[in-house]
């Protein structure tokens, strides 16, 4: 993906170049690329007049950020307590098996990135798997395949 630093500037300007908006700025930028490219981090540091180490520090400290390119579809498996007691680890194992990747990795075709999250706050419906912001509640290992079928189909359908 081409990195357009002008877009970065637009986002920084929206927050009025405020340092206290650093996390929000990085989040908005990441929403576009799915990760934080190096040029972007450097540009944010320049625009906010912050030491590069501080912006890198924030980008590596918080779980929300990735410095590695991520896939087209983001898959999050919730491992919160309520999901855990209802069998989330088994669901995660099945997701890993279906996608053929470990937690934190991206499929070779760059379609899916698998991550875990410590609670999405929809505990009554656990275990939960979220694909691109769409919540799938009351998951069972047996239901996992169906979730991805839908996304795989949609992508292949569009490409055909």
């Amino acid at each position: 993906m081409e990195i357009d630093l002008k877009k970065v500037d637009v986002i920084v300007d929206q927050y009025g170049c405020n340092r206290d908006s650093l996390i929000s700025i990085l989040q908005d930028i990441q929403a576009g690329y799915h990760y934080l490219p190096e040029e972007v981090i450097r540009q944010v540091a320049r625009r906010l007049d912050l030491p590069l180490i501080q912006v890198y520090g924030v980008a590596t400290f918080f779980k929300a950020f990735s410095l590695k390119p991520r896939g087209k579809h983001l898959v999050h498996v919730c491992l919160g307590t309520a999901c855990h007691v209802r069998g989330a680890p088994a669901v995660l194992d099945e997701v890993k098996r279906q996608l053929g990747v470990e937690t934190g990795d991206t499929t070779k075709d760059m379609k899916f990135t698998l991550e875990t999250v410590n609670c999405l706050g929809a505990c009554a419906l656990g275990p939960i798997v979220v694909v691109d912001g769409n919540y799938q509640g009351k998951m069972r290992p047996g239901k996992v395949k169906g979730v991805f079928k839908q996304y795989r189909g949609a992508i292949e359908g569009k490409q055909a």
Partner: protein
Amino acid sequence: MNKLRSAAGLEQLRNRIMSQRDPERTCVVTSVGTCGLARGAAGVAQAIATELNKDGLKGTVDFRTTGCHGFCDIEPVVVIYPKRIVYCHVTTADVPQIISETVAKGKVIKRLLYTNPATGRKIVREQNIPFYGKQYRLLTDSIRFVDPHNIEDYIALGGYTALCKVLFDMHPEEVLDEISKSGLRGRGGAGFPTFRKWEAARNAPSCDGVRYIICNADEGDPGAYMDRSLLEGNPHSVIEGMIIGARTIGSHHGYVYVRNEYPLAVDNLGIALEQARQYGFLGKDILGSGFDFDVKISRGGGAFICGESTALMASLEGRIGEPRPKHIHTALKGLYDRPTNLNNVETWANVPLIINRGANWYSKIGTEGSKGTKIFSLVGKVNNTGLVEVPMGITLKEMVYDIGGGIPDGRKLKAIQTGGPSGGCIPESLIDLPVDFDKLTEAGSMMGSGGMIVMDEDNCMVDMARYFVKFLTEESCGKCVPCREGLDRMLDILTDITEGRGKPEDIELLEELGDVIKEASLCGLGGTAPNPVLSTIRYFHTF
């Protein structure tokens, strides 16, 4: 909408809103909180809007989308007012029939009703569902009447009258006094008396007079989601509480630090703040009183440690979320070294209620040391999962059996985990324990933000202890050694036990490690991290 300029202006506006509303008119309500959306509520809401538009009902029936009503397990829910007929697990396919039968003709569709699992009977009205029976929904009941995108719904319920009272009829000292008398304690977990924080922030010297107000909506406890639900469903109640707090303390700048994992809460709060500005509740010269205050949203980065006040403030300043020692409280030196008052979402939402109805009324609810109600997320191995608001002092038994409907499949209750990773597991034998700040602490657990995770005989207690320690190992910021290295060591030992390599002396070592970590850690994360392990040893050693 022109900005409101006085208390009388608000009164006139509310009268106008009320005159345009007919409580007897049919209104279809569907909840589109995160729980509902996870089950397809967006499609249901869309279908209802379409059906109401094309039918002969156009313009004669109201339609409202709200946050979660609490009983998440039966989402998506559609309620038809004024009779409060409730349908659960509604799909888009059910919508045409709901409109043509119930909305148009008043007929009840039996198959969509809630079935009481205890009696097998169908229940027509929302208020008769046993899940709601023992609850006292002070903060959460209004969610059913408020479209979070429409400030006028909140005003119709008497919203912002408490603010008027504080701005025009009360001296800040009187507000402090009222909060003090109410006995309100912080709902974020530790239960610190709210007025003392406010008082400290109000009286603390500030080099340039700047003071900050923060609403902590980071809610990192896995298994708890009452903050999300309040922010999604009734964001104005939180905003109103914050403005009252700001006025009392003398602050003009507020922040809501909200989890990035809660996108809908961020959206709804953003819309609510914008509307509050348009109506004159935020910004310069609020309601013509001369008082200025505004609120900014700051999204968190997904770090549990940022629920800790000093770490939260560091991350608000654009730094990594590491805590600092709290020899000096944040009430004196917090954000940018200025006096800062930080309260949890639920604490703020209680404030307008106390001002409106009085400390005397409020302090009659709850127990001696814990006043008011508390929202719990009752989840895990329990039949009725959802958000439960109860007066403090209700017993665990009432929570699990009367409200929660017991354990699925007739299994045996083993333990109830409260307080998240800082809390502990309470065994079945303590089922009659009344739930309040002090009783839970005595039992070796804590209130925390209100997660209540029910476990049955199939759940392994060592696995649970290991789960929390693993969570905390990943979430420790790593700044201090006892927390960073100690938790790692605890995790090794617990992993050994769960994988069959445990040794008898491990228990003693875990206890010793736990005591050191509690004693020597820099902040609350490490200070409470061994609780799940220690409480598990205390109650389940003999298993």
